[in-house]
């Protein structure tokens, strides 16, 4: 099978705007939650979130005009995609080709985006019109064009990042916009890899982005019982819920032949991926971790690896009891008492929803390249249901250069990806 390498890696979240700085924050044991800035949430449960600091949309986009056409979540996605493409040197390489070769290059470069968020926020743009017309739909129709931005629909498209990153960088190959809630980011990487394996593309840009810190989403999550009041403590006996984050991450995946031809720096290798669902309902999670353990097994089988080959695991680790406990069950089922170091990043950067799998891959790859498994700083005493899980507060070395990243979502969806980190000499 075609070897697939990683030549670009970028991330932005509450802990920094590139993977190296974010890993530094994790290694220092810093949780990045601060009071929510978008509104006064002082009386709310989960009033803390890991927010991108000193947010400046125009600067992140490098294009003030584009800011009118996209939303906050899109800004993160376009930023991450642009950074990864720059690091990989894709555009510079294309521009140096002759015209015919440029066209072929564009056609053989794909893009898959995991996109989320905005289900409620996009509708808020209609509130001034609704207030003005006071429940009258005929008036709503009549006043529409004088009160709502004519570009409203285009600003609201879930596939905006795919659209703008491709226009900006002339990506014209196979593509997708995955809106499968939390697993979207990881699926964008898995689908990118398949596009290369199947020969449909020689390179693909995978992006996950989201900005779920909005009032309605937060309150609903609280109603479902998923929000922590103060800290996100995965696997801890006091684990009581999740906290939100925001941001994006992007990887450039490339066939080894394409990367070698370009002389690109190889950051790692994609080894395999898997996805499985439990089919029990939207919030239901099986206690035995069935879906997650099968996703891991599918990924191992896809990569041709055994559990003993895995050097470190970046787990979903979202701090809710249902997810943590079943995740522990799944990991024990697959790895038994020969479990590599397990960690997770949400205790520091929050849950990035559609971006979470992508950013865990991005940060996990950077950490594995440095041969360090960041500790979970908020971990105290292990919850009884998580006994046997190989987690620690301390930063530890990885067992090998193979990284397993897990991601789980509403609707009982589970995804897993395996990578090999290229370690700088």
């Amino acid at each position, binding site marked *: 099978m075609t070897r697939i390498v990683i030549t670009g890696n970028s991330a932005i979240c509450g802990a920094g705007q590139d993977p190296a700085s974010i890993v530094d924050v994790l290694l220092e044991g810093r949780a990045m939650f601060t009071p929510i800035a978008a509104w006064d949430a002082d009386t709310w449960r989960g009033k803390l979130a890991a927010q991108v600091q000193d947010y400046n949309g125009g600067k992140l986009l490098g294009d003030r005009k584009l800011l009118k056409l996209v939303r906050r979540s899109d800004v993160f996605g376009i930023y991450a995609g642009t950074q990864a493409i720059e690091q990989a040197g894709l555009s510079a390489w294309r521009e140096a080709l002759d015209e015919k070769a440029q066209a072929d290059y564009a056609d053989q470069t794909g893009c898959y985006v995991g996109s989320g968020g905005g289900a409620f926020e996009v509708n808020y743009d209609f509130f001034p019109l609704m207030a003005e017309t006071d429940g009258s739909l005929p008036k709503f129709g009549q006043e529409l064009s004088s009160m709502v931005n004519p570009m409203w629909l285009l600003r609201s498209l879930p596939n905006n990042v795919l659209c703008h990153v491709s226009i900006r960088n002339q990506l014209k190959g196979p593509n997708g916009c995955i809106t499968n809630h939390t697993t979207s980011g990881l699926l964008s990487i898995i689908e990118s890899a398949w596009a290369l394996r199947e020969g*449909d593309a020689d390179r693909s840009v995978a992006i996950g982005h989201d900005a779920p810190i909005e009032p309605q989403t937060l309150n609903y999550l609280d109603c479902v019982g998923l929000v922590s009041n103060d800290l996100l403590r995965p696997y801890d006996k006091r684990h009581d819920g999740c906290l939100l984050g925001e941001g994006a991450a992007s990887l450039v995946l490339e066939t080894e032949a394409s990367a070698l031809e370009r002389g690109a720096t190889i950051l790692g290798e994609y080894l395999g991926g898997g996805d499985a669902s439990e089919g029990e309902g939207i919030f239901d999670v099986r206690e035995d971790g069935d879906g997650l353990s099968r996703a891991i097994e599918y990924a191992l089988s896809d990569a041709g690896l055994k559990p003993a080959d895995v050097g470190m695991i970046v787990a979903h680790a979202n701090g809710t009891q249902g997810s943590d406990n079943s995740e522990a069950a799944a990991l024990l089922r697959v790895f038994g008492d020969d479990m590599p170091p397990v960690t997770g990043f949400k205790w520091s950067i929050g849950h990035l929803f559609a971006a979470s799998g992508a950013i865990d891959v991005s940060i996990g790859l950077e950490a594995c390249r440095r041969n360090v498994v960041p500790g979970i700083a908020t971990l105290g005493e292990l919850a009884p249901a998580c006994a046997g899980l190989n987690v620690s507060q301390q930063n530890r070395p990885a067992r090998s250069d193979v990284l397993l990243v897990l991601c789980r979502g*509403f609707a009982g969806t589970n995804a897993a990806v395996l990578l090999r980190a290229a370690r700088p000499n």
Partner: protein
Amino acid sequence: MTAKRRVAITGIGLVTPAGLDVASTWARIKAAKGCAGPITIFDASGFSTRIAAEVKGFDDLPPIDDRKLLKYASRAHRFAIAAADQAIADAGVRPTQQDASRWGCVVGAGMMTVAHEEIAAIQKAAAPQGELEPSAILTEPVANDVMAFSRSLSTAGVSLLLRRFGIRGYASTVHTACASGGQAIGTALRLIRRGVADRVLTGGFDSMISPVGLAGFCLLSAVSPDNDSPERASRPFDLTRNGFVLGEGAGFLVLEEWNSAVQRGATIYAELAGDGNSLSSYRITDSHPSGDGPIQAMRRAIVDAGATEADIAYLNAHGTSTPMNDRSECAAVHAVFGARAMEVGVSSTKSVTGHLIAAAGAVEAGLCALAIRDGLMPPSANLRELDPDCDVNIVRDVPRPAHIGMALSNSLGFGGSNSCLAFRHPEETAALIAAGR
């Protein structure tokens, strides 16, 4: 490299403005009778466009025998469940405890997930002057209703289907605007080829016929304002076309690894033979007038199917009836088929059904399979004066009998994603297999 696993279409389910099932939808499409009319779902009298192609008599559908499920099913979700039920029944196979993990589910879901009454309730309680006061939602019932939250999630649709049929393999939801349905089915095809799944329930569902949904298209002047002649408003390729007609509904297919379908004696409508994807990378709403973008998607689908341009008899065009789309798409037809361009029958069934947005590609995939089975190219309705820029061989007004060896279906989305699916007559597939290909 080993040969690609072939994929059979063994089940179809349709809930469209043309009918609540496959038979009624197909009959109305063959009759070339447009479905658009004045909007009845809400009071659209103040909008610049007051017409749409609604799914009619939906409450007459058999009720869904799962109360827990219905609690978080929106209008579009109910279309999805009904169409998926039909497809599974039609295929005569469903997941069992033994093979549930070998079933996948990939859907194209619409972008509007919150019902207007819920948006209005939040506005009234928390944005009486137009600006949201976030803490005011804390006491608003809709903002505390977990079922409202469930319905709003982008994975609500896939979740309903996974649970209803007990599917436990690869599950995904995609949204590339009008290309969503096509890309979902293309992904499903690939899951079977990769060996990740043996059977996949796949399709699309959408309903944007709501105040905010219609508003988005009115603001862009993308929908036809022909309020006085709704049945003629969707007229792809016509010189006077002036926008699409918003539709709603769902289309679902059961896809199956070919040999297993043959072994169990399934009725095979067609082989889903190829999937082509591309990005226009031009503008958000349009592809290049030259057809660049759609051209690559069509070529990729043909190559992916192991075919050549000469094999294609019929194209179910994206054909939205907007000035730009139809022109660019017809340019793509000429670029792809060259001297053979006038030998390919082309029609847009959106002339009858309207534009089902995220469901369009899925419904049209089902129609291509039916066209192959019946040896009938479905007609394009409402074409009076052909736009010289749309000079392709259009199947006009009445179905055209023909042996359709291979068909293509285009779905071209806002945002620049282009999907093309390729279908092959099952007898031709059997002949290829017999010839060792």
